[in-house]
């Protein structure tokens, strides 16, 4: 499994209130949520983003609320992967559970700039910066989480396994 797209870079502590402000939480429709994604931190994000693009951020991405609307909005906006130094734990769980690929890689975050062309191989954890010609080794998911991601989310995983 691979993803390819341009990078949109952000700083530390991008919180769920800026990813999807609470004023839009009266909706559960992914497309509607996507239309307001990142609105309070980057007004033009949704106009600029193309299918396959990636979000690259520093520490503690997705901190704050447990709203699954945040990874849902990001995924529905067309983002193929979020790369960060670290993720807030509920956001991390939610992303895996809904099948939004995410990866921790401080080295990649340090070097990647806005609009760099990035390629991510989820099986190996290799992040390739095509613009700069550099390569970084991201943290591949533990096997248990890979199973959930391969099943495209927790719901399918549960349907396929003996959890029930």
């Amino acid at each position, binding site marked *: 499994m691979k993803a390819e797209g341009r990078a949109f870079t952000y700083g530390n*502590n991008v*919180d769920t*209130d*800026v990813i999807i*402000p*609470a*004023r839009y*939480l*009266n*909706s*559960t429709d992914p497309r509607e949520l996507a239309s307001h994604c990142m609105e*309070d*931190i980057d007004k033009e994000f949704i106009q600029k983003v193309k299918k396959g693009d990636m979000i690259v951020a520093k*520490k*503690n991405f997705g*901190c*704050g*609320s*447990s*709203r*699954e*609307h945040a*990874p*849902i909005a990001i995924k529905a906006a067309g983002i193929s992967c979020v790369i960060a130094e*670290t993720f*807030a*734990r*509920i956001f991390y*769980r*939610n992303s895996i*559970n*809904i099948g939004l690929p995410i990866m921790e890689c401080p080295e990649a975050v340090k070097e990647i700039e806005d609009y760099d062309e990035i390629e991510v191989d989820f099986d190996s954890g290799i992040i390739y910066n095509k613009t700069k010609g550099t390569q970084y080794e991201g943290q591949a998911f*533990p096997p*248990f989480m890979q199973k959930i991601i391969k099943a495209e*989310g*927790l*719901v399918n995983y*549960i*349907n396929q396994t003996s*959890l*029930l």
Partner: protein
Amino acid sequence: MGMTMTQKILAKSAGLEEVEAGQLIESNLDLVLGNDITAPVAIKEMEKMNVKGVFHKDKIALVPDHFVPNKDIKSAENCKSVREFALKNEITHYFEVGEMGIEHALLPEKGLIGPGDVIIGADSHTCTYGALGAFSTGVGSTDMAAGMATGKAWFKVPTAIKFHLTGKPGKWISGKDIILHIIGAIGVDGALYRSMEFTGDGIPYLSMDDRFTIANMAIEAGGKNGIFPVDERTISYMTQHSKKPYKIYEADEDALYEEEYSIDLSSLRPTIAFPHLPENTKTIDEIPEDIPIDQVVIGSCTNGRLEDLRTAAKVMEGKKVKKGLRCIIFPATQSIYLQAMEEGLLKTFIEAGAVVSTPTCGPCLGGYMGVLAAGERCVSTTNRNFVGRMGHVDSEVYLASPAVAAASAVTGKIAGPDEISK
């Protein structure tokens, strides 16, 4: 090797003698919680699963509290979906407007949480119940759906940070000042993925309401959970509120902690988190100049309990809210509301010129009932002050204790309670 309190509870929930940090386990859940924002998404996800119904109708709590009474048509539709699901699945602990409250104040009050329990909730402040010596943590809607369907959740056993609380806190120092001080010291990701284990001879001085406030904001330091040892106060709270059987767990003496902090509660001062992160803390003595404000909010899952309202009323008694400032007070549950009425606290607030709202999460997350305009400043007893949290992207939220919030309402600027109640 010894285990922390959190690790012991998790081991029990997974049917294991022992667990160690980093281990992936599957836990049996004592309670699964959702609200009117997160449950509608969970209900949709659960419909995709090959299940007939919920795993246990007594072990699920559904509390519409964020945008109720319904703030608009879409919110009404969300609440309707939760209500219909609750009726169809005969959910015992579904709380309609009129009997509800803010979920994290309501569930302990209703006796649904006990020491040693394992709880997941599709709300980040689910960590509140650590005050009672339970393991509780926030999850998203899909985890909630899986929890409702299977009664199980997977966890990675966390490493821990120990907070050794010593000494007796000063007159106006509350749980809020303590947790803001801690977040200021370790940062908003200082406890990322880890459990925050509170201990020390200062704990007996902390009321249950103080402990709820502290555990509630563990998430604002990135923590997986925050947990207090069970003592006489906890047991007395349980006796008053619950008939549930429970089990007390204690950390092993040789448990491993990645970090340890010692905090002398007697040295703390009223503490305020400046925009736009809970870690941007200053004590009341460090504020260089007058900071005029437009709104004060007192309430929420963090600080909407009876003791919070009593403190605010003590500061505001016989005073007036500064002309031109809006002061919004929202008791966290119907029972707290009633008790505050009987004690005359609501009279004090209303006579001071504050408005008293029905229990709701509304203003805390900029939903409704107190949204800020561009350029406005609010002192709030809530838990987050992110960009745009309470309204316009150019508004500001200052997090503080009920005592500071009440004093600020009277003076129209950020102020400590000593400034007005001499």
